[in-house]
């Protein structure tokens, strides 16, 4: 199982081949990374995303997909879904960063967002969460500098979502999520209609040439190689690709109208 290979320091060390996923706790469901590890340092990454066809459109993109298909979707519904999607991502991020209490809180708020809490109620729930995450120096110390993705490189890869806005490391991507959670929680009673030309879901533009999670997956190997295992998990969680977006839809046109 283990052969030897040169490591970064010119030593010859055992190399372990370890698949991560498709099911792993706090992991984007369906993602498979084939890692070559030396010790706990990631040397090589292969990304696989072969998924079974799904009869349902990707849950987190649904309001925007419906808007693109020509349906009149209230902005409030989209904001609610965006808020919940980012809270879901934050839950994974906190869990991987080893902050179980905050992960549990983010998930609880996500559930109440999906259960239809109104804007005032939801804002009251997210505000302390955002404050605590922003104020945590330990969190900043632990996640700053991991997986830097400049806006330029992100644009080159075709990333359109929070990872592009963040223009930086895992920590700055989390800050973008927090910011979006706060704003969308306040907007979740809005009754205006979503503009189909501006269909930007939780992970980026819905109407682009590829689903927004595709460029996130393409960014993974470059960001992960050479990182320590714990850092690699944080980087994956900070991009949080949604594999549902890549699942083929069996009935043509079912999701896109």
């Amino acid at each position, binding site marked *: 199982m283990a052969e030897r290979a040169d490591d970064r320091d010119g030593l010859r060390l055992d190399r372990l081949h370890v698949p991560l996923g498709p099911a792993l706790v*706090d992991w984007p469901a369906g993602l498979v990374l084939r890692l070559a590890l030396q010790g*706990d340092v990631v040397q090589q990454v292969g990304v696989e995303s072969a998924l079974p066809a799904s009869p349902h459109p990707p849950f987190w993109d649904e309001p925007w997909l419906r808007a693109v298909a020509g349906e009149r979707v209230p902005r409030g519904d989209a904001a609610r879904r965006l808020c919940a999607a980012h809270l879901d991502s934050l839950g994974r991020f906190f869990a991987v960063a080893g902050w179980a*209490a*905050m992960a549990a809180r983010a998930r*609880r708020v996500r559930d109440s967002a999906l259960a239809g809490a109104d804007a005032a109620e939801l804002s009251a729930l997210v505000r302390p969460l955002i404050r605590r995450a922003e104020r945590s120096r330990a969190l900043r110390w*632990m996640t700053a500098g991991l997986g830097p993705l400049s806006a330029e490189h992100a644009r080159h890869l075709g990333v359109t979502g929070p990872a592009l806005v963040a223009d930086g490391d895992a920590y700055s991507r989390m800050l973008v999520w927090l910011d979006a959670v706060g704003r969308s929680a306040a907007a979740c009673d809005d009754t205006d209609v979503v503009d189909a030309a501006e269909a930007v879901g939780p992970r980026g533009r819905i109407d682009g040439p590829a689903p927004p999670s595709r460029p996130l997956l393409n960014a993974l190997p470059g960001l992960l190689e050479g990182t320590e295992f*714990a*850092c690699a998990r944080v980087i994956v969680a900070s991009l949080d690709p949604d594999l549902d977006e890549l699942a083929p839809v069996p009935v043509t046109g079912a999701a896109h109208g």
Partner: protein
Amino acid sequence: MAERAPLWAVFVLPALLLAVALVTAGIDAVLAAGARKGQSGSLREMAGRATEPGREVLRLLVQQPRRTRASDVPLARIGAALLPVAAVLAAVVLPLGFRSVSDLPEGIVWFNAMEALAWAAVWLAGWGPNSTLSLIGGYRFLAQGLAYELPHMLAITTAALGAESLRVGEVVDAQAGLWFAVWMPAAFGIYLLSAMAMAFWGPFDQPAGRDVAGGAAAELSGADRVLFLGGRWLLLVVAAAFSVPLFLGGGHGPLLPGWAWTVLKTAAVLAFLVWFRHRVPTLRMDRYLELTWVVLTPLAIVQALAVAVVILNR
């Protein structure tokens, strides 16, 4: 100097530690459930949450053990069993009030040696099952050991220096007037950090981190798992309790008897450690290592030097 406790204390000690560990685990479970499901007002529900760890132990004890392919079973077993043994042995020199099971003349060294057994325990438990994630958990604990042990040893040495004795009873006696925590605050702070690290607890729980599916404990099941995770709780209790004779004046205090002061102070330290874990994310050891070598170790040396100068001039 601490009195020798009667012989039956040898049997009471593990039971007492176990009881304290269970209560602490119960409080921790209440806090964790509060984050997960929202605070609960009803007493019944609270009690249900508090008994969760106890029920988990019973569940694990009747669980069908599972085994990984090509695992080194004896190695993993020894690792799991060593952890509670190390914790109880370390507690032998722990005075309750002014009585300990054995007030060894070099009690502080004994304590440090016993807690170092945890290094072997976690490494064996991580190595044994032939699984990557548990192996990474084992690696991480060794890295953690490198990070915390040096400032930790300097911190407990400082307390011994202040009392001019390695005997725990004499360290307590030396604090009759003034607690060591007051004039050795840096050593006390460093001790608290390393108490958490020693039990790979709170911000130092990376060896058993969630991102490696429980790390060193990932493949343990059934009774092995009870021993390992229970041993970790015991270790936390012992590490917290040892801060009382070292820095918080042991059984010294007004009005109440000595044992009551020990219990109260230990409870306060434990409550702090449990609360702290829910406040901060896990520290990555590559970052913490930097802090320990650049800040904590020099700080501990300066603290020891200051104490030495005070003692010499007395």
